[in-house]
């Protein structure tokens, strides 16, 4: 049995990164994430020296007590204005990357991204409703309306798409994809209808455009904490599903023959994936490309085993989005580019270079 006794020979050991044991790889990526977060917190429209920022951040962790040699406003800017955005970007990037891995594993399609089965249009519809509703959140209240409605819209849409595609106890993948496409079209039409009929038309359209272009829209730590809890719980569930995803890679029939409850796990993957996507989209609008590119990049570097792919994609997605958000804020300061534009401009060439330079044929 050639496959069972296959030992890696010298040529394969030159595969470099793949040979590193998993804990070291994860540690390296985590350190890289921390460095990138520090870098992102040090850039903004108000120049604050890097040393000051490092001292402010270390003071904030409670382990250090540097004497304050900086203005109080610098501390407010770093902790209350910049850090929520940076941590929010990291969480959104991680959530989208993990959701991308989940959907690509379940649908067995390299073009699958987290928005495929309707979460993007559902969230956009929720946001459009939030922008045109007359009752607003009360000044200074805890829960702003837009993220909640965007989250609800995304989750409800995905559940609706799943229930439409379910025929006789089974959900064929092709039906799921087609139902998602149809749902996207219908919801975009609803969204246009609502904006046309609403009396707040002018502000609604501008606000919705800003929201759709993508950008981390957090204004306080409370939003980041709530979304962070949902995303971390979702990523934990995703990690527990890693062997299921590996089995899915063999094909649904083979997985069923191995004794796996295919339909049950499909529903579970859809729920976890859409929960991650909805939580990410509720604070960031529609940022494309992260969920599509990051799993592919990690798969090209590290191989398709999901047990390693899921955590490294999460860290890779977080790093990617924090960097993209940083560049979006800095490149034409003080104007801010939409982050979605940046993820596409930065992600696409990088992915192409990786794909072309890899001598090995791209294996799914």
């Amino acid at each position, binding site marked *: 049995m050639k496959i069972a006794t296959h030992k890696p020979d010298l040529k394969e050991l030159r595969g470099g990164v793949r040979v590193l044991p998993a804990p070291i790889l994860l540690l390296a990526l985590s350190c890289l994430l921390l460095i990138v977060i520090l870098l992102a917190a040090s850039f903004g429209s108000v120049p604050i020296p890097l040393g000051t920022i490092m001292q402010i951040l270390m003071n904030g962790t409670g382990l250090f007590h540097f004497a304050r040699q900086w203005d109080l406003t610098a501390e407010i800017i770093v902790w209350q204005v910049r850090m929520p955005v940076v941590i929010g970007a990291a969480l959104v990037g991680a959530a989208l990357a993990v959701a991308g891995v989940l959907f690509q594993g379940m649908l067995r399609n390299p073009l699958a991204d987290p928005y495929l089965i309707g979460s993007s249009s559902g969230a956009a519809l929720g946001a459009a409703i939030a922008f045109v509703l007359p009752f607003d959140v009360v000044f200074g209240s805890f829960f702003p309306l837009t993220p909640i409605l965007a989250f609800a819209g995304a989750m*409800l849409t995905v559940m609706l798409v799943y*229930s439409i595609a379910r025929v006789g106890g089974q959900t064929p993948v092709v039906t799921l994809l087609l139902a998602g496409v149809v749902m996207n079209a219908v919801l975009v039409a609803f969204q246009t209808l609502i904006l046309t009929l609403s009396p707040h038309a*002018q502000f609604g359209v501008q606000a919705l455009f800003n929201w759709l272009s993508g950008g981390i829209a957090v204004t306080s730590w409370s939003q980041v904490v709530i979304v962070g809890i949902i995303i971390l719980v979702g990523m934990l569930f995703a990690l527990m599903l890693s062997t299921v995803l590996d089995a899915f890679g063999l094909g649904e029939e083979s997985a069923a023959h191995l004794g796996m409850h295919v339909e049950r796990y499909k529903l579970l993957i859809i729920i976890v994936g859409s929960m991650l996507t909805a939580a990410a989209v509720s604070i960031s609008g529609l940022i494309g490309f992260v969920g599509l590119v990051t799993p592919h990049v990690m798969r090209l570097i590290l191989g398709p085993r999901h047990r390693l792919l899921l955590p490294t994609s999460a860290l890779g997605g977080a790093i990617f989005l924090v960097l993209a958000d940083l560049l979006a804020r800095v490149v034409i300061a003080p104007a801010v580019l939409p982050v979605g534009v940046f993820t596409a401009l930065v992600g696409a060439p990088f992915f192409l270079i990786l794909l072309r330079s890899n001598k090995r044929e791209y294996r799914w």
Partner: protein
Amino acid sequence: MRSRVISSRFFLLLVFFFLVMLTACGQSGNSQSTSTTSTQAATPVVTLDAYGTPIVFPTSAPQRIVSLVPNISEMLGALGLQGRVVGIDYYTNYPANLTSLPKVSDVNGKYNVEQIVALKPDLVLSYGKDTKQYDAQLQNLGMHVVDLPSGDLSLTLQEILAVGRLTFTTQTASNLVSQLQSQINDVKAKVAGTTAPKVLIESDYSTPGKPYVNGGGSFGDELIQDANGINIFHDNTTGGGFPQVTDEAIISTNPQYVILTEDPAYGGDVNAVYKRSNWGSIDALKLHQVYRINSNIIGRPGPRLVQGLECLAQIIHPDKFPGTLPAYCTGTV
């Protein structure tokens, strides 16, 4: 074949959701218009902000004021507070001595919270919930934010008094407001008893055949009424005061005056109106009564609304206002 239990429930949920959405859209138009009149009728002075909470007036004169909207900047300029303003928004363009100050927003309407914090303001002024996404955040960062309510012309004059009270310039403000009020009364007296012509104020013609106009609830509508004219779209209150209408509606109501408000670079060209297809039968074009007024003096809730009223009255009742039209009527700032 088994019936789909899950899908029918979700289908019902979707239908219910859809009905709720439509009802919300239908009712939202009414609720918006009633809120402002109740604020106006209750007290003669503005004491509640745009969210209905009482305004907290500062105990000492603010020295570092940031204005987040262009009409508040105009009010601050009219009250002579240029020396105490430290930040303005991107769209502030009048008065000229404020335009060189640091801008805290960009062309897309995104406000730079970091920069506002770094300017260390002791008073941040906004208007009509234009910056509602940012008000709570700025308040939580320790700034004194006042978001004044939106309303009609008389409420705008009251708000100038409120800004005066917020900035400790009450005497200047009451002088300014009484002067503006006497100008308004003067115009109304002069046009009393004249026949009211039909007027169209257009906001945008980018989509040929479907222009945006000033409808009921906009300042243009109110100024037309004060100048003794008839706004042909007075009954159309959709679109928040700026509904999109069709060419047919304009041609069938046949206004005697067409007033453009667009910037000359973006469609505000009077000569181009004469070339519009199907518009040749409109009285305004036959009598060559197509004009352009600076949109900032008939759209911005500030002291220059009175200038807009005077320009409009002079255009539609030229016999009562001899002399040439002043240059500020057709300006672009």
